């Protein structure tokens, strides 16, 4: 195979992987950063890094985990670079508001707002489990946590959401 063919094959492989997992990458980045604009930047950087290190992905069956791991690192790098301050949920930028206002639906707005207010430690494993279909073992591997810690965070996350949503109901 000449270098041109190899380059074409490499690009085709990359495009196929990104086509399949782009939605997961974006949603994971959006819920990690809680900001649509930041999520787009993080995904762009992640795609570049993934492209540069494509050869390290030996098995395409592991592509989702590989890409989400890159997104996670890029998100951390982004916030490290920008040294963004903790977001005050009552003082949101337009792109943060856009995340909460996605697909207007009163019931979903409440849930989205409650998820948004969760601490990162609780929100991330919840996103990985519910949205990405990760097992608790896989979440532990990605986040560097033992399985018991993952289970505790997931349990607490749901109880916090339940309390927040019940509280919203009682206030209306």
């Amino acid at each position, binding site marked *: 195979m000449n270098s041109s063919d190899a380059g074409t094959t490499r690009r085709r492989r*990359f495009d196929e992987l990104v086509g399949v997992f782009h939605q997961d990458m974006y949603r994971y980045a959006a819920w990690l950063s809680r900001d649509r604009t930041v999520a787009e930047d993080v995904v762009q950087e992640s795609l570049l890094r993934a492209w540069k290190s494509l050869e390290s992905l030996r098995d395409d069956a592991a592509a989702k985990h590989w890409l989400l*791991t*890159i997104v996670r690192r890029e998100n951390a790098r982004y916030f490290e670079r920008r040294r963004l301050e903790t977001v005050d949920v009552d003082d949101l930028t337009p792109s943060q508001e856009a995340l909460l206002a996605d*697909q207007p639906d009163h019931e*979903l707005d409440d849930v989205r707002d409650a998820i948004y207010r969760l601490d990162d430690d609780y929100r991330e494993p919840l996103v990985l489990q*519910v949205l990405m279909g990760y097992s608790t073992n896989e979440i532990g591997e990605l986040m560097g946590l033992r399985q018991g810690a993952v289970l505790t965070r997931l349990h607490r996350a749901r*109880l916090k959401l*339940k309390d927040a949503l019940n509280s919203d109901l009682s206030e209306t």
Partner: protein
Amino acid sequence: MNCEDYRQAIAAEPSYDGGAAHLAACSGCRAFRDEMRSLDGRIRRALAIGVPELRMPDLQDVDGENVVPLAGRTRFTMPAWLAVAAMLVLAAFVGLRMVGSNVTYPSLADEIVAHLDHEPYALRVTDEPVDAGRLAKVVPANLAAMNHDTGLITYAQTCVINGKKIPHLVIQGQRGPVTILLLPDEAVESAVQLEGESINGIILPVGNGSIAIIGERDEELGPIQQNILNSVTWST
């Protein structure tokens, strides 16, 4: 299983299907299970936000020479101006800055920093040591001897840098995982500092080779360097 155990399990994993005997006798836990499963459906719908159309970045800048697989890449085959250009392109992406040395080793620094992203699984925060047998396989006795001063080694993998197989290790530092690359065939004249937006690293000359140590930006590398230098002895 009591109510507390069951509710912890179902709140952590709403698909949990254990505790059937308890569930059959406890209407409160059945209601809790149904509530958790209903909540999970709402969470799933809430998280599934709309995704903008894929905007592929310009991959041309990192195409061609810059993305030749590491195993096939050789040093000093590019014209010097191209090597420097490649270095600058990479630096634009990772914010790499070399300090304390003139830019004599762009290829080695380039490959080391790029390699950090090759195995993202390696950078786990964990207290589980790598299996001793695996460590012995990755760092064979005919390459180097290591004593126990390195710190907790949590990852060991044979990797390729500049076309040569080298041990890639990860130890746990104060601020997170620290990558150690043993480079017995990569001589450097003096220490090469690697500073970046998110990394803090150094390539240390050791005998006829070198050792690269890269941690998080705020990692204190001094004690780690000393431990590694005390621990590693080349066998050749």
